[in-house]
């Protein structure tokens, strides 16, 4: 087993932990929000999902979601968990870039940073637009 393979194996193990942690935290936050949401609204009739209205600013922007969490709203806490879930693969790419840099693998540092740039373009670009 050469140096690259050994480094890759370690990276895989750490990525495994990172992904598991991210998903567990996101899942726990969504579950917590779900409990609040269902206790307060569980008996209510179903909202209209048959036609599309689009979510309000409170549930479709980072600022709106955080404001809703401070007011302890179930739906906002669920959306926070969704945001954490979206952040998990992004964190994985950030970690991979650092790990490839430690391996002094310039080619894969460049490849990984490009992927990161595309992800940030989507996340930041969409919140500006």
């Amino acid at each position, binding site marked *: 087993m050469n140096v*690259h*393979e050994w480094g*890759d*194996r370690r*990276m*895989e*193990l750490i*990525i*495994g932990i990172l*992904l*598991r942690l*991210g*998903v567990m935290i996101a*899942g726990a936050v*969504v579950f917590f*929000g779900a409990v609040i*949401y269902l206790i307060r*609204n*569980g*008996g*209510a*009739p*179903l*909202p209209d*999902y*048959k*036609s*599309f209205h689009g*979510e*309000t600013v409170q*549930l*479709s*922007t980072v600022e709106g979601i955080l404001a809703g969490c401070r007011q302890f709203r179930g*739906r*906002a806490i*669920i*959306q926070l*968990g*969704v945001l954490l*879930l*979206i952040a*998990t*693969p*992004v964190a*994985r790419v950030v970690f991979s870039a650092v790990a490839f840099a430690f391996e002094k*693998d310039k*080619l*894969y540092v460049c*490849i990984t940073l490009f*992927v990161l740039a*595309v*992800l940030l*373009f*989507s*996340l*930041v*670009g*969409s*919140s500006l*637009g």
Partner: protein
Amino acid sequence: MTILVFTVLVAVSSFMAGLVGALTGLGGGVVLVPLLTMAFGVDIRYAIGASLISVIATSSGAAAAYVREGYSNIRIGMFLEIATTVGAILGAMIATMVSARAIAVIFGVVLLVSAYLSSRKQREQPTAEECGSLSEKLRLSGSYPTPNGPRSYCVCNVPAEFSLMFTAGTLSGLLGIGSGAVKVLAMDQAMRIPFKVSTTTSNFMIGVTAAASAGLYLSRGYIDPGLAMPVMLGVLAGSLTGAKLLVKAKTKSLRLVFSLVIVALGIEMIINGIRGTL
């Protein structure tokens, strides 16, 4: 139907979708969108939003288990993510311009073609000499665990693979699915990577691909918490169960199940596209 009943029903269905998604490398998304729209009467845009979130959960949840087993190839995944993420953004952008009916028909055809390709006879496992120089330059070759110790493999047709991945990414952004079928088959057929490696590496890439379009979907208001919550939690539980089974499952039966799922979904997509019910 009350919110509580709806939540439980959607969570149970999502568990099944997550299980199948992880076992086949499809991601729960392709099963979920038809399920939510046809069984639960949810608008396609909400279905796509919830599906996209579940796709990230499936991928990350299952990949966490796979990477520890040593099946997935991080370099192949990262290299191909260049193509899938750029494609995903393009897909999310053209989603607003193309009719859902046309997309459904095209995708159904893609699934049927994929099923045909996967049913063809397997070629001989290529040796390092047969592979292009790109496989070596990009350090894409690797090895995976077998009962007889690690087995090495290398990668063929890198440019063809790269463009197929761009297509997979575009479909992912367009339909809010993982496009695992296209990814697995591209790696399986074009690159000729062992099936378990391609399935797990595909699952690994899907989360990053979906994250590339998720930001756009969230800000467009496609992601409803009341719907995304049972879908995400259900799929997550299902995919973790599926990941445990995959390591034990035999490749042959896995491939058969995989092909049947693709055929069924392809026909479903085409019919719904023509009827305009998707």
